[in-house]
């Protein structure tokens, strides 16, 4: 045992996340957490090995962290959230003596670079540009709509803006007209602007080890930022072979070897896949929890396993169930945003609580009844979890309660 632990080395979790710490703790593998200093006390109290670190931009001190971790016997770094992806890249490049690991990680941190790389690899993407100011966005909106032969007075086709280095839907805005552009805050520039892609949106959570797909989950978005469920409905799953192929292409284009990727696609009714974006971190929307509920394995542990080059084929085989077939049911989540400015009370209908698909919810009346203004897709206030064995019913429920006022 002593030997194997030494051989294995210590895994450093970059970022503070209790579910991840818990998952690692249950894996019987030595780990430490690199996180913001405010967690030091909590870590000490709970005997969690901890290295305090401020993850801001990579800088000349980055080497300091690598040295510190090496001294502690760290052999592997696993990123927990968007901001730590490039840190993990830098650290793993050093631990594994492969500088390109770092450069690859940067591709995933810059939405402009990411799109270019995908396009160069022949992956179908929308029209995009980088915007450094509002004029760029104005021009892009105009040019896209000219290209669509819209006349003055026609309703514009929308475009999307996303800050280059922010995670997921943070700062994601839909732009339809000039007025929307004025609302983009200065700090969101530079950003990526891209044309609107029609079609059903979905995401994949792909566990990759040694460049191979070990488990491919497809998460069906009922409504981006509001509701999704796992595994996808049989209708979407019929495209699994095409999706699988597209992801293999993505993996090879981005030279991804280990860990998790979380790409988003749009699929048109004829099966054409348009690539949205890809991240190498834990997805939002409670997707990991949904995977756990549907398949019964801990996705956080899966990420750690797949991040480690030393994990054996046997371990991987034993860990992952068979996609779709082995799912025990459909697990869905509905993210709830208050639609009132002042929350008076919580209104969870008995009908919902009595529905056999209702699993649980985590809504309380927040301590401050005033609702924060929503920026982009913003943060949800609570989540309702569903679980059941029919995807159509799941979709129906998610749609039904999407417009329900849980906070009144």
């Amino acid at each position, binding site marked *: 045992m002593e030997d194997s632990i030494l051989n294995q080395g210590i895994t450093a979790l970059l970022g503070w996340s209790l579910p991840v710490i818990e998952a690692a703790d249950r894996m019987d593998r030595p780990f430490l957490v690199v996180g913001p200093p405010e967690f030091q006390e909590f870590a000490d109290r709970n005997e969690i090995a901890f290295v305090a670190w401020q993850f801001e931009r990579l800088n000349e001190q980055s080497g300091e962290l690598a040295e510190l971790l090496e001294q502690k016997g760290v052999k592997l770094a696993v990123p927990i959230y968007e901001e730590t992806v490039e840190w993990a890249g830098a650290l793993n490049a050093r631990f594994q003596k492969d500088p390109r690991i770092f450069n690859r990680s940067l591709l995933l941190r810059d939405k402009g670079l990411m799109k270019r790389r995908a396009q160069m690899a022949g992956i179908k993407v929308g029209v995009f540009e980088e915007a450094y100011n509002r004029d760029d966005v104005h021009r892009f909106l105009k040019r896209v709509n000219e290209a669509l032969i819209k006349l003055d007075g026609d309703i514009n086709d929308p475009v999307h803006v996303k800050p280059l280095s922010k995670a997921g839907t943070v700062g994601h805005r839909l732009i339809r007209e000039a007025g929307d552009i004025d609302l983009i805050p200065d700090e969101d520039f530079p950003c990526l602007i891209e044309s609107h892609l029609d079609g059903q949106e979905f995401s994949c959570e792909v566990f990759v080890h040694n460049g191979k797909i070990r488990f491919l989950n497809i998460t069906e978005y009922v409504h981006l930022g509001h509701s999704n469920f796992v595994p996808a409905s049989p209708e979407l799953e019929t495209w699994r072979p095409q999706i699988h192929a597209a992801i293999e292409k993505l993996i090879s284009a981005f030279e991804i070897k280990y860990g998790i990727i979380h790409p988003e696609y749009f699929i048109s009714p004829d099966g054409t896949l348009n690539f949205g974006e890809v991240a190498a971190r834990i997805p939002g929307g409670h997707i990991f929890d949904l995977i756990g509920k549907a398949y019964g394995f801990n996705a956080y542990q899966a990420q750690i396993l797949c991040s480690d080059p030393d994990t054996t084929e046997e371990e991987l085989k034993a860990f992952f169930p068979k996609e779709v077939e082995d799912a025990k049911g459909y697990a869905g989540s509905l993210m709830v945003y208050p639609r009132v400015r002042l929350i008076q*009370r919580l209104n969870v209908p008995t009908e919902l609580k009595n529905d056999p698909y209702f699993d649980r919810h985590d809504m309380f009346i927040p301590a401050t009844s005033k609702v924060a203004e929503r920026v982009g897709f913003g943060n949800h206030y609570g989540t309702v979890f569903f679980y059941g064995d029919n995807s159509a019913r799941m979709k129906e429920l998610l749609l039904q309660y999407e417009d329900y006022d849980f906070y009144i």
Partner: protein
Amino acid sequence: MTDTAVQAAESKFEQALQTLEQAKPFAKSLYQTEVFQRAIDLAHTDEGLDLLKTHAARFDAAGVFSGGPWEDASKLQPGFVGGSLKLKGVNSVVELMSELRMLAIARGEYEHPGVTADEARTFLNEVMALNLNFLFPAETEEARIESGEHLERANRLFRLLSRELSLKAISRKIVEEIDRLTTQRPIMVGRIVNMIRTAEKMLEEDIDADTRSSLEHYVKATGTPTPFSERHSDLRDYGRFLREASEEELLQEAEAFARMMHSTGLVSAYHATFIRHANRKNHDLIAAALGLDDIGRAFLDTQHELVRDMIQVAVTPETCQILYGFAGMLNRGLLSQDALLPSLRRLFEIDIHPDVHKILLSEEHKRSGIGPNAVLLGGTISVLGQPLGVGQGLNPTCQSARAISLWSQHAQNQLLEYIVRAARDNDIDITFEGEVIFSSQLEGGVAEEIHQELDPVSKVLVPHLDKIYNEMMKRTLLRLEDGHKWVNPAFYGEWIQRGFINLVDPLTGAVVNFSAFVKLFYATHHPDYNNGYELIYPNPVGIYITNVSGELLGLHAVSIQRVAKDESGEWRIYFYNPNNDSGQNWGQGIEPSVKGHGEFEGEASLPFAQFVARMYAFHYNPYEQGDTYMVETEIVEEIEKMARESWGVGYTWAL
């Protein structure tokens, strides 16, 4: 919830608790949410709460309180419990679970290293004493405005605690509370009787002598108040005794009933049995049994037949409480008004509208075979005898309650007209600026629905009055002045003074000219400044209701009944508060008094300046006004300071 639903909720709670139990200490917070959610579901019923209690010994070890302010039971303060329970968020359920943990310690089911069973019991007793309102939910403005599921849950918790603990330690406080409420002589005494019934159990405990004798007095007043009623096991038995009793015994009984009723404002069912007996056999005993004064006796004699019939129709053991109002009505000499007599008689037999019929009769009435006319007549007697005992219950209808109270004092015929009209036609009409408004043609009032814990007259009238009042206010919406200026005289009656001032500018919502407002009130209402004009009719004024910290809770309608000096020579404002619980603490040391400062039955009072510091609107007679410049600046400044630091915090103050 059905039994199976409660069981399902318990098993889900159990699962969540177990998951939490199994989590490592650092991961507790991941699973606490689910435990709190399931606890909320379970605590939704009394049975569920009982089940939740059975798990309480495990809470600490499972980590329910890990990482939060409730973590260490030995550091908790009873004083914070009430506040936490009133929070809407997750903390109210954590607090509730913390009390259940304390109960488990008190019961010896859980041994805590820092809290002994005795200490836990002391803690809970103090919590109970500090929060009687949870045990006996009040019909106050605060309770009404801040209602919600979390508060119902807290009420449930206190019911459970009262069953689990001895009430000994809080007995004194409860008796004080009963004293305070009965002093105001409300018509609706259900809550007081409930408190007495709950507190009765404390008589078996070792409590101090004063508390015991007060409590015994209340228990007797609502049970067997006389020597012979005590000796008879039920009303039938007592009825038989009355037939055999001697003149002397009957007179003693009559006087004992009267004494108990007037000392508490509460009436026993035996009293009704006695009165009915006297009504049939020996009319002379009625005056003694009602404790009538000379006026009351005079009208009892002159209106002998009407009184006899009213008793025959309206007084039964179930409606015994109306006897207090009956005595009041006779003593007020109301039966001297010739027009009132046929109006009262009319109530015996009018056809009551089916919808009104439904709301008038409680299940208890139906079981006892009491008809709607009897209930309505009884209710009318109560209102006529206790004008300041009218309450709004849990409804936001202070204006309507105030109207009924005003009419009962100064326009009894008008009141009777409205009662008959509403009961028979389920409609009321009031003319506003030349146009007749019919309540039956209106949708929606101030209150979304009328809470039915009301006296019969209010049950019948308030739905109509509320709609009409609301409609009148709507019609004044665009006048750029507070609509009460026109609505109040039309709604309440022509004696409402035409001068009117509101310190808030309806256009900007800002407080304007506060000092002028104060000076005008002094110059029109304060005997030292208003050239000695007395207040003739009650003045309907608007006040800000604030909580114990002086924070604004909402607007409220009260009536100034009179202005007078108290026993120490201080000028006070005596007022009627339709919430029937006037002795609330309004913060900044402003605590309306209900006795001991010369208050009449049902009145509350405050020193003049303190009242003004909470007022925002009043009527005045512009022809009876002293000189505003005579009002000292210091007085205005003192009041303005109190206003600015309490309700005024949320307002813009225009210069």
